[in-house]
């Protein structure tokens, strides 16, 4: 009998990282005991996406020695963080800070547009962890709060919205598909729409 391969919704890379997430904490105890140099947590359990990241840093070289995490989210959220944790291993902090969601998504062989925001989550958790490390080691000057925060609960900044527009989002829906900005806070929607128009103008997408 011919064996047909089981079908799978996402890419093969996502499959591998989802079923065997790398560097993830496999128990609550493990996470609790872990001595990290920086910890970052982003997301909101209400909307479902929640990510916590722990990094160990080589002080001399300012590189990431280890990146561990826990995720409450979908397959894309788990896979993107997993691949990110591998990417940053041995990477200089400032370089790791600048990794873009798109690089992560490319590594995974692409994600459906609606799942882009999951990759933003890991990315943000990482930056939060790096900032936390800077804070703890008195390198406040290095902390980058990249730009004004638009969505307090999800810590989405103007920069994130601009990135979404640059990467192809044109409407509020598009931007939400990538970032989830304002999903829980309808009041800020007009402001977001204003920003989208502004960035479309700025980058000549009008």
């Amino acid at each position: 009998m011919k064996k047909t391969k089981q079908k799978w919704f996402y890419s093969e890379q996502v499959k591998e990282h989802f079923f065997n997430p790398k560097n993830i904490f496999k128990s609550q105890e493990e996470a609790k005991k872990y001595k990290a140099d920086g910890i970052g947590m982003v997301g909101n359990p209400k909307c479902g996406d929640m990510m916590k990241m722990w990094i160990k840093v080589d002080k001399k070289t300012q590189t990431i020695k280890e990146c561990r995490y826990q995720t409450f989210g979908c397959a894309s959220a788990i896979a993107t963080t997993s691949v990110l944790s591998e990417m940053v291993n041995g990477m200089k902090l400032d370089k790791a800070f600048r990794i873009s969601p798109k690089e992560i998504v490319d590594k995974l062989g692409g994600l459906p547009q609606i799942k882009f925001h999951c990759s933003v989550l890991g990315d943000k958790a990482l930056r939060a962890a790096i900032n936390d490390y800077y804070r703890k080691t008195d390198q406040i000057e290095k902390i980058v709060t990249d730009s004004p925060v638009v969505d307090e609960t999800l810590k989405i900044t103007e920069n994130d919205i601009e990135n979404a527009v640059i990467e192809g989002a044109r409407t509020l829906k598009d931007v939400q598909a990538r970032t989830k900005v304002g999903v829980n806070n309808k009041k800020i929607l007009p402001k977001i729409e204003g920003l989208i128009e502004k960035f479309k103008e700025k980058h000549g997408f009008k």
Partner: protein
Amino acid sequence: MHISYLDNAATTPVDERVLKIMLPYFSDKYGNPGSMHQKGLEAKEAVDEARKTIAKLISAEPNEIIFVSGGTESDNLAIIGTAMALKEKGNHIITTNIEHHAVFDTCEYLEEQGFKVTYVGVKENGIIDPKDIEKTITPKTILISIMHANNEIGTIQPIAEISKIAKSKDIIMHTDACQSAGYLDIDVNKLGVDLMTLNGSKIYGPKGIGILYAKKGTILQPLIYGGGQEKGVRSGTENVPLIVGFAKALEIAHSVRDKESKRLIKLRDKLVAGLKKKISNIHINGDLEKRLPNNVNISFLGVEGESMLLHLDSKGICASTGSACSSHSLEPSHVIKALGLTDEASHGSLRFTLGRHTTEEDIEKVLKELPKIVESLRKISPIA
């Protein structure tokens, strides 16, 4: 790997007997029922026969059956068709906050067209109180549309009672019975409805076919214009093979209904009891008594639905979830929300819908695999 398909509310496989009866109508008996020659008449006869069969099964007259392309079109025709036909009489429509999107979004469309829609909330058990419907009726109310049984949580609505209220106020009553057709009595007289939606793909019939039952005298404005088929209400050449298949599917569903219901209630209750015993922090969504025999909907707190679903799939178990992560809008299920539960609860909700091919082994497989999956996902979650 043996697939335990527990997503029968999404769609069901076509019954062998249904498939067999359809096949000649794709090739040998290919006529257009609108033609006067023998090939046309052969096809017309089949459509007439199917119409009669369906009518009898729901206690209607054959000319009260309108063939359409499925449940969604049927809902659209019922709601938009009634609203447009009666817009001189009034502009108010009543529905609930747990309807299928085919009803929900259609109502939203009508709101954009200037109609007023009241979305009456269900109680926390997922059932509507007829009194709450009655309270919202105004002199301008022209239509009430309420699903017979819910597709996500399986709760059964008191349609007959609400129909009585509607009738006493001269309001058209529509029900979507797509999910209940296999399990509940869908006799239109007992339900007292003017309009009823049925669909083939939930009752082991083909996809792409459904009906709208429209009681004699109910006026509908068509959505599709053309050759004037279906008394002008739904133009387009009759889809003969699917019509024949739908009638057969409904006939079989009717004949096995009671036996299947009893069998599935046992399996359903076994699944619920087993999961309750093996997994902590879970919540059963929707009333346990007034519920379809094949529906289980449970929230596993602290776990995300899509992740559970994909792990289950890798073990050969097909289910579905109300998680925001797996919805196109990134919004959690409006049905679970309507029960007054947190977003977290809908995030971790799983639906298992049993069916004709579900066995004890399938249930045992879920009871063996799911606890492990939930446990491992809770371990990697920062909020568990």
